[in-house]
């Protein structure tokens, strides 16, 4: 637990402050078992400012079909135009790029990187 707190603090208090203000709660099960409904996540809104998301990373992105809603998914690949393909970890219960196609980098809102609740799973997330 102490190690987890240390890891959270390491990138700096600013980073933590930004992320805390952009904290979110997870709805839905398409990212199970990585993320479960009700999890509180810290999202770093500037994580991808200098570096595009890489395959395997979690992202919060505007839903291309309903832009006022944010999705949380994992980047599965970058296509040739540098657009992102997203996928849920629970493939059988996920609506993702298999349905809505690739998304633009501009629709990325940030990187969920730390789970605050539940306490049993407090810590960094990948």
């Amino acid at each position, binding site marked *: 637990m102490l190690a987890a707190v240390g890891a959270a603090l390491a990138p700096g208090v600013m980073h933590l402050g930004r992320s805390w203000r952009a904290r979110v*709660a997870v709805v*839905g*099960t398409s990212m199970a078992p990585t993320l479960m409904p009700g999890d509180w996540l810290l*999202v770093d809104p500037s994580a991808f400012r200098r570096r595009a998301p890489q395959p395997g990373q979690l992202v919060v992105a505007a839903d291309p079909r309903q832009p006022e809603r*944010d999705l949380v998914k994992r980047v599965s690949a970058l296509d040739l135009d540098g657009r992102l393909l997203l996928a849920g970890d629970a493939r059988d219960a996920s609506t993702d790029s298999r349905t809505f196609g690739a998304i633009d980098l501009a629709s990325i809102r940030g990187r969920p990187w730390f789970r605050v609740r539940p306490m049993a799973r407090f810590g960094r997330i990948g």
Partner: protein
Amino acid sequence: MLRDRVLKALAPSRTVHAHCDVPCGIYDPHGAEIAAKTVSKMVALIVENEGSDLAQRNKLIRSVKVKEEHAELCKRELQVLWSDYFKPEHLEAHPDLHDRFWKALKQASTCKQSVDAAAAAELETQVAAIADIFWATKGGRPS
């Protein structure tokens, strides 16, 4: 309680959706229909079965086993539709729904007990009628 108030104050105001268009069960009467058709086919194979050599006896027993299993599968598929998919509002639109399920489940049991092509055909008919109701509640069969 203080803890609840603190948690409420700290709770995220935004949500992110680990979204799925079909978040819970995917229901489809196709499983019950296929199982009922399989029962019919097995009844035909059992009736056709002739000879008493080992290969024929093996084939006969396998056909009986598959008939038994698929009649049971048919019941299971029907029960899931009945208990999990259909809602009270469906019953209002289709007041004979409970009776249809009850009769189809009993018909599947009859098919286990007998080797009767007419009984198997009746099961298929009853399951098809339930499938029609299912698709009516969905606004039509998918094309």
